[in-house]
């Protein structure tokens, strides 16, 4: 019963974070492609408790996606080649978005196109639309103008897509960076210069898996995107590098399974995190991460989540006990 703060009200840590013009009540965001349209998780997760929800990647026209098998588990992760299957802009606006408007949580729409103009048309189609808090641009998809090479591997095409979207939208623009590059900082700088409000990283790492009995690839698409805890150290290092390079806010992701993983990303400079594959393993993981961060703040006397952001101590560890 003895404590110097006994008469003080319990400190409630302030978890709010700012991603450019976008205010989030906490730094935990459900990542695109792993949370459907949010509605799929509604029986298990109160969406209003999340920092934000990024809905399934959206294209101008509906996309059927790749032939199966589309997913395969690998040690500590999974490869997916869904092929960006989605219902298209029209059905999203008509069937999904109206059901999302009842939530107070910001809904971020992840968009992608096959060529630069398509990004612009899609952004224009979402212009002024109520209930869309921001756009997240997926630049990891193949660019038909460049023989199917991903937009995101080249700083010039990445910047061009960013500019095109910015020209056609009134929403904050987050650019989701591909890790399948030699130096992610180069693309990050190019996209920042193009005017992006924020960056999110990393998207999946390209990989493959083979069945040795049949000698066939385990994915019908041959290659897929690796996600899950296996990629976390890579993701963390990339977020660390980018956060020190750009001035705009960075959202970190890649293999976050629990609140300590999320804290690592905050400590290297991310202002928020996205949680992806872990939603498949534990559908309530987003809520548990928020709770874990809150407890960590309380136990460590942290009043504002911003105190953690970029708080990595790089001096050699010393024992001063």
């Amino acid at each position: 019963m003895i404590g110097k703060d006994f008469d003080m009200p319990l400190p409630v840590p302030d978890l709010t974070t700012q991603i450019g013009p976008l205010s989030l009540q906490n730094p935990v965001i459900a990542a695109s492609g792993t949370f459907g349209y949010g509605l799929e998780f509604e029986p298990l997760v109160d969406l209003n408790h999340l920092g934000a929800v990024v809905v399934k990647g959206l294209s101008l026209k509906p996309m059927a996606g790749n032939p199966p098998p589309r997913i395969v588990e690998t040690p500590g992760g999974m490869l997916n080649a869904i092929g960006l299957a989605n219902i298209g802009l029209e059905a999203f606006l008509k069937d999904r978005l109206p059901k999302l408007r009842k939530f107070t949580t910001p809904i971020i729409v992840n968009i992608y196109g096959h060529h630069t103009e398509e990004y612009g048309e899609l952004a224009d189609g979402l212009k002024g639309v109520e209930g869309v808090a921001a756009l997240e641009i997926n630049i990891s998809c193949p660019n038909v103008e460049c023989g199917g090479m991903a937009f995101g591997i080249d700083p010039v095409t990445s910047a061009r897509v960013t500019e095109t979207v910015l020209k056609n939208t009134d929403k904050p623009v987050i650019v989701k960076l591909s890790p399948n590059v030699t130096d992610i900082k180069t693309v990050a700088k190019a996209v920042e210069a193009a005017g992006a409000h924020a960056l999110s990283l990393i998207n999946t790492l390209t990989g493959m898996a083979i069945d040795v009995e049949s000698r066939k690839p385990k994915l019908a698409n041959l290659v897929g995107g690796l996600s899950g805890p296996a990629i976390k150290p890579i993701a963390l290092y990339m977020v660390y590098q980018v956060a020190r390079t750009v001035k705009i806010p960075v959202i970190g992701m890649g293999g976050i399974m629990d609140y300590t993983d999320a804290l690592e990303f905050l400590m290297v400079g991310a202002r928020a995190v996205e949680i992806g594959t872990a939603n498949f393993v534990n559908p309530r993981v987003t809520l548990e991460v928020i709770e874990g961060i809150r407890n960590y703040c309380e136990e460590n006397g942290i009043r504002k989540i911003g105190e953690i952001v970029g708080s990595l101590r790089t001096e050699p560890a010393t024992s001063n006990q």
Partner: protein
Amino acid sequence: MFELLTEIVSNQRVTDDTWLMGLRSAEIAQAAKPGQFVMIRVRSGLDPLLRRPFSICGVRDDLFLVLYRVIGKGTNLMTELRAGEGIRVLGPLGKSFVVPDKRTSRLLVGGGIGIAPLVFLGQFHREKQIPFMMGFRSAKDIISPQRITGEDAGFLVATDDGTKGHRGLVTDLLEERLRENPGEVAVYACGPKPMLRKVAQMTMPLRIPCQISLESHMACGLGACQGCAVKASAASGRSYVYVCKEGPVFEAEAIDWEGL
């Protein structure tokens, strides 16, 4: 739909490579309908990472049963679990079998581990039941429904090697049945893909209602990951259907059987 820590009540070997696990959850046992499935997190930690989908093969009071074949890392680990241990389960998930009016006789056709959802269907709707047709590789692989439900139920069996019952395929038994004026019947099937393809090819030209339970790799079970796509029939006007949410039970007409 629930996501719960359930208690393992039993976990026993049934044949060389199939096991039966009993799990306690009044919520799931009461909500479960034949054809639905659960996603089981085999153990906490990161390996295996994803949950594994299993058909519910029966319920008893506040228990639900899962029949599983040991084929990989996840199912191997499941055999090591003991009664009294806890395991996280998400479910019940997916669409159940739709049972037509009472005049219609029901033909259950199962192959191997595919009998699991049909055992539950047989338990749920016992009236107008026609003996369950089941196919296995050999006599030693036969899984008796009685072994699962504890209730006496007759069944016809076919084995690949003829060590028990009809020597040949379970679809031979179905063919025979359909040849002798079957009356109003509906067929319910689950098993290996070639067997299901054959069942669909036998029932569709005769316009016999046929519901088939499919399996697929899946990550979430909730309709979010879109990993469980199966090629849809041209008639359906779709490219793919999703096993977790639109299935696992489909009308035979919905699936592209050549592309499966």
